[in-house]
């Protein structure tokens, strides 16, 4: 098998979202280079070995591993502590989704108590509220008159600064966004109907509409 396939196999394993079986690799190569391309699962296996030898020699921090359902790239374990730092960062980002939700509810519904927040979110929100308090994005505004006199929360000046707003009433109304969407839907439908009509009309007139540059566009 040609040496060039090492790089192609490397690229396919690198970009594949799932562990990629040798059969898929072969399918991809044959599709492009022709059905008569000579390449077997054994060739793929040999390529992967050669690649791994290269990674070893070149002291790359990654290599290809084989698991039950195919090949995939992995960083070598000696870098695990550095990678650990990365996954911490990733978890933070994922968690921020919950924080945004809590913050959004407080921003739009303020002044609001914790029970009210939890009613909307459906989950205990102690942790999120504490974090947002720590980050000074929200603050305690007092106590509600309702039973148990729960604390009431609202957003801070830091919150406004973070989002580039002058005052809390500058927050876009959910309605504003809905209106843009509604208008847009309406306009788009009108446009679609219009385009259909043009196309029908032109078909009648035996003029073909060539949308070749555009037929893969969405809007």
């Amino acid at each position: 098998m040609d040496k060039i396939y090492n790089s192609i196999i490397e690229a396919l394993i690198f970009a594949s979202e799932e562990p990629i079986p040798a059969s898929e690799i072969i399918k991809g190569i044959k599709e492009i280079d022709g059905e008569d391309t000579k390449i077997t699962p054994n060739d793929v296996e040999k390529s992967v070995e050669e690649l791994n030898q290269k990674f070893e020699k070149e002291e790359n921090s990654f290599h290809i591993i084989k698991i039950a359902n195919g090949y995939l790239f992995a960083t070598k374990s000696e870098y695990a502590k550095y990678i650990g730092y990365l996954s911490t960062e990733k978890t933070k980002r994922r968690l921020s989704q919950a924080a945004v939700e809590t913050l959004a509810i407080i921003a739009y519904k303020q002044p609001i108590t914790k029970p009210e927040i939890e009613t909307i979110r459906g989950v205990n929100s102690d942790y999120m509220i504490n974090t947002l308090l720590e980050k000074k994005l929200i603050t305690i505004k007092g106590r509600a008159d309702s039973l148990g006199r729960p604390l009431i929360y609202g957003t801070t000046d830091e919150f406004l600064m973070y989002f580039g707003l002058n005052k809390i009433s500058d927050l876009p109304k959910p309605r504003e966004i809905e209106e843009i969407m509604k208008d847009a839907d309406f306009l788009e439908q009108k446009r679609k109907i219009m385009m259909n009509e043009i196309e029908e009309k032109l078909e009648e007139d035996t003029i073909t509409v060539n949308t070749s540059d555009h037929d893969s566009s969405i809007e």
Partner: protein
Amino acid sequence: MYKIKLNTFEGPLDLLLFFIRRDELDIYNIPISKITKDFIGYLDLLEQLDLEIAGDFLLMAATLMQIKVRMLLPKEKNEEGEEIDPRADLVNALIEYKRYKEMSEEFSYLEGKQRSVFYRGNFEKDEAETKPELDVLLKNISIYDLIKAFQKAMMEKPKEVVHEVERLNVSIEEQIDFIMEKTKSTGRINFINLVKGMYEKLRIIVTFIAMLELIKMGKIGLEESPNFNDFEIYAIENG
């Protein structure tokens, strides 16, 4: 067979630019009468095809006709006494639009180039040593994310859970405050006494959970009570 693209024109400015290009017109000296004629001709064509004409196009037709009329009248002058060309605003708008239209070709080129670039697809076997700590960071959050999150939260608002919470009107946090107040004012208190007067079973459970929470936080301690099946709660200093 003719190949055409009718949705070629993104708007009236786009159509006007087409006429200018087609007829090799000088954009700074647009023959307004001719271009108005062509523009309205196009609208008539759409009308004959039974198509609804967008308001933006009708507005432009009106603007063109207005310019045409103003061209016939004595020229207005600006503060410096220079004649104002009635076409000036239109010319500026056309040039500005043309500029971005041209740039959008560059963008499409970049888009195409980027489509042949692929990123690493699978990260599942990367070993990570440390366990991620649970600290929240708001990263790259915009107001738009805020609205989206709010709409989503309101849409997915759980209905049944709400009922119970509302009926009971008690939360762990409130009961934490309640226990702290009690232990501070009375020093020590028996659990039985603490929940005395609570009629709903759930309220007692919530109070019990609040107590466990406080123990975890190191704010209170428990001691066996001389009374059978009971215990004493006491506040921990500096807790």
